């Protein structure tokens, strides 16, 4: 049906579309019509503009004065940071900060264990005469050594993120977070937005090298977090990643994407 000949129905659908309550198949059909019909598109845009004004009508409330201080600090930090850093979306920065903190915490734990072993060895010599105390310390030392082995193996198993990409849709809203762990040859894709590809489609992840055709990095399942296997060579020196919408199961990598590219973003080394 050509909606442009049914102004009342068009207006009703456009209002529900802009409000967000038009969902599922009905929403996809409406979007498809809007792409081809200027009448449908302009009605949808009109209602989007109208509803955007809802944000102007909410009762105001003063935030804590700390918020401005935090904004000021972050801007100052960005200014003094590398120019490249200033270009990165806030999410990447937040992610990097979290990563540094996490690494710091893990290392601090290891150092604390090593220091504790040193102290217990020293104490062991001092209280040589008291067998029971020595035995006690020996046990503690054993436990500490064991803990240290555990920590080391945890560190070994923990992912080591060396590349991060935030892939955004055409509205620049962050939709996918991609991280690469070369130690475990794992690419992790995390869905941030509400995008669902539908049962007959699959999302496929591509590396966009500086020159040449896109290279497939794998086809994503529909879980919220997807792990793909990739060697570091596949992502090293790749400036950007993209996700395209493909038929279920994806397409052969050598042909490049066949469907629309829905999300893309820069791939940034974390160190």
């Amino acid at each position, binding site marked *: 049906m050509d909606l442009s000949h049914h102004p009342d129905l068009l207006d009703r659908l456009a209002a529900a579309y802009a409000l967000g309550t038009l*969902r599922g198949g009905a929403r996809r059909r409406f979007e498809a019509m809007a792409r081809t019909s200027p009448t449908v598109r302009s009605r949808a845009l009109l209602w989007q*503009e*109208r509803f955007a*004004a809802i944000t102007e009508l*909410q009762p105001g409330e003063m935030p804590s004065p700390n918020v401005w201080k*935090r904004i000021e600090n972050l801007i100052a930090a960005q200014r003094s940071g590398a120019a490249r850093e200033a270009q990165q979306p806030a999410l990447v920065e937040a992610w990097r900060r979290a990563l540094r903190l996490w690494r710091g915490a893990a290392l601090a734990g290891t150092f604390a264990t090593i220091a504790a072993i040193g102290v217990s060895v020293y104490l062991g010599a001092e209280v040589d005469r008291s067998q029971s105390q020595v035995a006690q310390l020996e046990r503690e030392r054993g436990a500490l050594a064991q803990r240290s082995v555990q920590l080391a193996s945890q560190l070994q198993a923990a992912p080591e993120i060396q590349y991060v990409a935030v892939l955004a849709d055409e509205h620049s809203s962050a939709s996918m977070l991609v991280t690469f762990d070369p130690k475990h040859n794992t690419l992790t894709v995390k869905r941030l937005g509400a995008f669902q590809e539908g049962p007959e489609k699959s999302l496929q992840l591509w590396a966009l090298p500086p020159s040449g055709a896109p290279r497939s990095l794998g086809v994503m399942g529909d879980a*919220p977090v997807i792990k793909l296997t990739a060697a570091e060579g596949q992502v090293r020196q790749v400036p950007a990643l993209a996700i395209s919408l493909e038929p279920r199961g994806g397409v052969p990598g050598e042909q490049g994407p066949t469907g629309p590219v829905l999300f893309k973003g820069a791939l940034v080394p974390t160190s």
Partner: protein
Amino acid sequence: MTPATPDLHLIALLDRIAPADDGSRHAESEAALRELYDLTCSRLYGVALRVVVNREWAEDVLQEAYLSIWRVAGDYRAALSPPLAWMGLIVRSRALDFLRRRASERADAGVPLEGAVSETVAGDAPNPMDTSEASEQAWALHECLRKLETRQREVVSLAYLRDLSHSELAEQLQLPLGTVKTWIRRGLEQLRGCMARFA
């Protein structure tokens, strides 16, 4: 010089925040951001709070939103929306990102999602909307929303601000699905009739 309308003043501030053509920024940019913040933070905090409910989260959202505004202020020159609505959309989108990120982190950690944000739709609040500093466009919407029953106005506003489906709304507001659908349908019908007169 006193600007003619609050909108023009906000537009001038956004222009001063944006980097020059060569990408450089002047100290003036930060002063303008500060002024923009002082003029709009309470309104935008209200939006963030309405979407995420929790005050601490709303402050995180507000911080992210002003950093976005600082980064993309130059884009406003090509935007057709009134400045406050443009900023309101940035806040809403940061707030929705925040909620999705949180939901996804909790899903990763195997923590079940917290129960629905329990909220009651006030039946008697006279008129909680605030039009001071609102744009002309917002004023038209305000006039039309004002004619709705309070509960219809509330579900319509929440559906938009939190990007919720009928069933998500029913869950969050603890109302029967049929009731939510009816209120939204009637609310939208009335709004359409009323907004057509302003077009």
